[in-house]
């Protein structure tokens, strides 16, 4: 018999993404690259008014353009809405409510023909008074946007705990502030794209970028007048998603209308300008927060009113208070807390889900408020946070059960690694001294679900594993790959369980007709949920193999292990047989023949919210504490982020390369939110729909990063892992804002901290100082 095989583990190691080689040499066919036989190009004519009556649409000249095969308007459609509250008919009739509103769609043989046709469509409008401010939209007598939404109220949330009136009386200091957080957008590198294709049975195949393929069918079908079971969803590789593809958006049913009319496949693809102006944004909001503290540093209460600009229609953005409220009620101990939100319809763009969900917005508020409260009671930012940080075993007012809670450890670690207090005090002392460049250091912490989020009836994921005669495994999972790297993580988990090399695993996860159900890539859930499902399915396969090996050897199944492609004795690693030859013996065993095909559906042990939004919605929670070190150029207002040190509770690292990538990318989003990214919208029109004027980070601005992962196995996570994809996005902006305050003594309640804004604030501060003298 061959040599003993030592027990090793793949968990925590770096493995490269299985799809990376094909992506490195141009072989990958993204959806945008796909061409189907006889495929037509579809494009959309949108409103150029923020709010108007549509008096007439004349498509006769467009129809005469050579190569045009179909033109559709609302009259050709069932007029059933898409989106979270189904208030968004794919093609609009009679009234347009925003600049992005879809009015006419054209399909033709070439892009040139379609562009020409679009330019020839004549639309007559009668302008209506437009409302851009949500407060105005809620005023009495404001023009009502949707017949069934009185007072322009879209969605409202409220959660109330304890007695904030009494708690306010018990407070020594009460902070009362307003924050305005802005519009940003995903800027996926791959522009929006969909291909709709009917077969001869009338069944529809959607090639889409969606990140929730199963419920996508359910959400899409009514707008088409179809049964969800007649839709097959295929997910070719995509150029980024980050939450932007978690809903059905009008262009998708529009592609179907065109395909239906022409009986040919139709591809709709966005221009970069459309990608900026007709994709969802991050939800903007105005927060009015009142927060109290006692002189000894104990937090007393929080009272938050959030006013959300819903825009013209409703996607996930309007539901972000679901996450915001967990941030306001959790994280630090505040037993008396109230949160109310209203989303008001306006003639602005609408928001979708976006990595970090409402937590990016809410944490900008809480993390800067924590600094302000610390200052009010003359405490430093670290001790103040440590004193109020929640601990393991605590339960938040909304019933997030913190079985594990490493917030305190995260704060202590990051403070120590950055020499926080010493730097903080030194920079503070320098604030008013002469000199162009001022340094600052700031901390912010985060709290987020890390074991899924039960917002749908199921938060589950299914997996099927099949082993062939050569011990090659096919892993069919419901979990989507959108660049985040679940392909590597699941491969690693299955390889670990089955003792086979990762190269011997093929992952299949791009076809709803093949894969088992999954709720979608959101809520940082995939490593936790899909990881558990894959692990459990692999465990069943492993058990079946070990039982078969035990039957064919003198060793009990419990004393066997799978390593390096062999069944080995657990204690000494001596191989008993090769897995592939065992699989063949099992397969060709006559009447006892068996194949190893296992499956699992994993539903996490979490609960949906009940009354008052109380419920332990996630099977795990995670905290992080990050420190930003900045230099402010007081002449130009430029804030340079020199370094970000991140301490993150991760449960357990599965793929080191992958988790670092998620951290680095997530932090980049957070930095953009805090420093440079902002959609400039005037009169409902996006004025900077391009890379020149909407500034995403490029390589020269990428800061130095230092990570410390705190590993403390989550009892329910796969190999102890938690999901962290959104967490790094949440913290950078407030950490930077706190660092800027440390540098120059100025607070910004309205990110991003652009050079103009910072320079203006510095001038104002100096002017005020001169005036006072």
């Amino acid at each position: 018999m061959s040599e003993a095989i030592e027990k090793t583990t793949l968990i925590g190691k770096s493995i490269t993404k299985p799809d990376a080689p094909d992506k490195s040499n141009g072989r990958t066919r993204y959806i945008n690259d796909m061409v189907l036989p006889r495929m037509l190009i579809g494009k959309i004519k949108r409103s150029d008014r923020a709010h108007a009556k549509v008096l007439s649409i004349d498509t006769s000249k467009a129809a005469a353009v050579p190569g045009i095969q179909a033109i559709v308007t609302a009259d050709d459609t069932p007029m059933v809405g898409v989106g979270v509250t189904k208030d968004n008919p794919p093609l609009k009739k009679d009234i347009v409510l925003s600049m992005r509103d879809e009015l006419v769609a054209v399909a033709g043989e070439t892009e040139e023909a379609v562009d020409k046709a679009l330019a020839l469509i004549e639309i007559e409008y009668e302008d209506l008074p437009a409302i851009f401010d949500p407060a105005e939209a809620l005023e009495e007598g404001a023009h009502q946007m949707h017949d069934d939404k009185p007072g322009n109220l879209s969605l409202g949330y409220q959660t109330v705990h304890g007695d904030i009136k009494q708690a306010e009386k018990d407070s020594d200091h009460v902070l009362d502030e307003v924050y305005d957080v802005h519009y940003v957008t995903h800027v996926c590198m791959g522009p929006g794209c969909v291909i709709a294709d009917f077969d001869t049975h009338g069944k529809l195949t959607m090639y889409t970028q969606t990140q929730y393929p199963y419920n996508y069918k359910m959400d899409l079908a009514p707008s088409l007048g179809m049964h969800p079971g007649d839709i097959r969803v295929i997910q070719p590789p995509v150029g980024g998603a980050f939450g932007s593809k978690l809903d059905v958006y009008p262009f998708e049913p529009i592609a179907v209308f065109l395909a239906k009319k022409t009986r040919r496949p139709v591809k709709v693809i966005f221009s970069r300008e459309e990608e900026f102006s007709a994709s969802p944004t991050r939800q903007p909001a105005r927060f009015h927060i009142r927060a109290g503290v006692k002189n000894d540093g104990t937090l007393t209460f929080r009272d938050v009113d959030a006013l959300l600009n819903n825009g013209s229609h409703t996607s996930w953005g309007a539901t972000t208070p679901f996450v915001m409220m967990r941030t306001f009620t959790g994280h630090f101990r505040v037993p008396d807390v109230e949160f109310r939100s209203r989303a008001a319809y306006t003639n602005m763009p609408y928001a979708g889900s976006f990595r970090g969900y409402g937590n990016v917005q809410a944490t900008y508020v809480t993390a800067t408020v924590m600094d302000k409260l610390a200052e009010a009671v003359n405490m430093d930012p670290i001790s103040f946070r440590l004193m109020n940080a929640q601990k393991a075993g605590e339960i938040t007012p909304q019933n997030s059960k913190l079985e594990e809670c490493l917030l305190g450890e995260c704060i202590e670690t990051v403070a120590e690694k950055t020499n926080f207090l010493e730097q903080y005090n030194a920079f503070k002392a320098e604030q008013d001294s002469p000199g162009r460049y001022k340094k600052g250091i700031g901390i912010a912490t985060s709290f987020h679900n890390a074991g899924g989020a039960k917002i749908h009836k199921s938060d589950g994921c299914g997996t099927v594993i099949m082993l062939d005669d050569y011990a090659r495994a096919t892993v069919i999972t419901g979990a989507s790959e959108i660049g985040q790297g679940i392909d590597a993580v699941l491969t690693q988990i299955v390889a670990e369980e089955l003792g086979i090399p990762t190269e011997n695993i093929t992952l299949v996860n791009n076809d709803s007709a093949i894969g088992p159900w999954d709720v979608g890539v959101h809520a940082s859930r995939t490593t936790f949920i899909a990881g558990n499902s894959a692990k459990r399915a692999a465990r069943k396969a492993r058990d079946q193999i070990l039982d078969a090996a035990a039957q064919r050897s003198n060793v009990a199944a419990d004393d066997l292990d799978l390593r390096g492609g062999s069944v080995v004795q657990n204690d000494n690693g001596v191989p008993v047989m090769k897995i592939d030859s065992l699989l063949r013996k099992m397969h060709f065993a006559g009447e006892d023949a068996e194949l190893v095909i296992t499956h699992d559906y994993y539903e996490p042990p979490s609960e949906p919210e009940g009354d008052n939004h109380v419920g332990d919605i996630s099977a795990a929670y995670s905290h992080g504490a990050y420190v930003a070190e900045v230099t402010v150029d007081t002449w130009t207002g430029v804030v340079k982020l020199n370094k970000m040190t991140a301490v993150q509770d991760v449960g357990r690292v599965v793929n080191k390369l992958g988790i670092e990538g998620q951290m680095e990318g997530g932090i980049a989003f957070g930095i953009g939110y805090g420093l440079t990214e902002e959609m400039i919208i005037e009169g409902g029109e996006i004025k900077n729909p391009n890379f020149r004027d909407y500034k995403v980070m490029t390589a020269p601005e990428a800061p130095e990063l230092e990570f410390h992962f705190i590993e403390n196995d989550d009892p329910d996570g796969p190999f102890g892992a938690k999901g962290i994809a959104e967490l790094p996005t949440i913290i950078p902006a407030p950490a930077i804002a706190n660092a800027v305050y440390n540098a120059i003594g100025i607070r910004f309640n309205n990110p991003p901290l652009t050079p103009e804004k910072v320079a203006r604030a510095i001038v104002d501060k100096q002017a005020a100082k001169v005036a006072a003298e």
Partner: protein
Amino acid sequence: MSQMVNIIVTVNGEKRHVSVTPGLSVLNMLRDNLDLTGAKLVCGEGECGACTVIVDGVSVNSCLMYAVELDGREVTTVEGLQSSEKLDPVQQAFVDKGAIQCGYCTPGMVMQTTHLLSKNGKPNDEEIRRGLEGNVCRCTGYTKIIEAVNQAAEG
């Protein structure tokens, strides 16, 4: 229909006869006429670098260059870097270092890196960052891309 222009261009070492309209970009010619879809159309305005290819040894934004300008010249795309079935060292470095998430920026990044290293075999950190300034990546935050360039340079 605009008048077609016939050009002869060497693409990834192969001489190609292509018939193009005067307004056609190099990017669209590669993607639509030659089925080389590695280079990506992301902005079409020279602002993101996803369409980067190398023309006569210099990296260009192929979305901004007219195909007619290619007559008699040599183009290398991300599909043309490998000289064997093995990935080219720059491509391999991007794989090894985890510099690829969605991968949509990767063909442009790989070509820009190839160009950078052909001009400067041992770039320092500053030179790498400046060299990649015109290439946007939304997924990675650039750390691993910079590491990949370093690996390729040391290669």
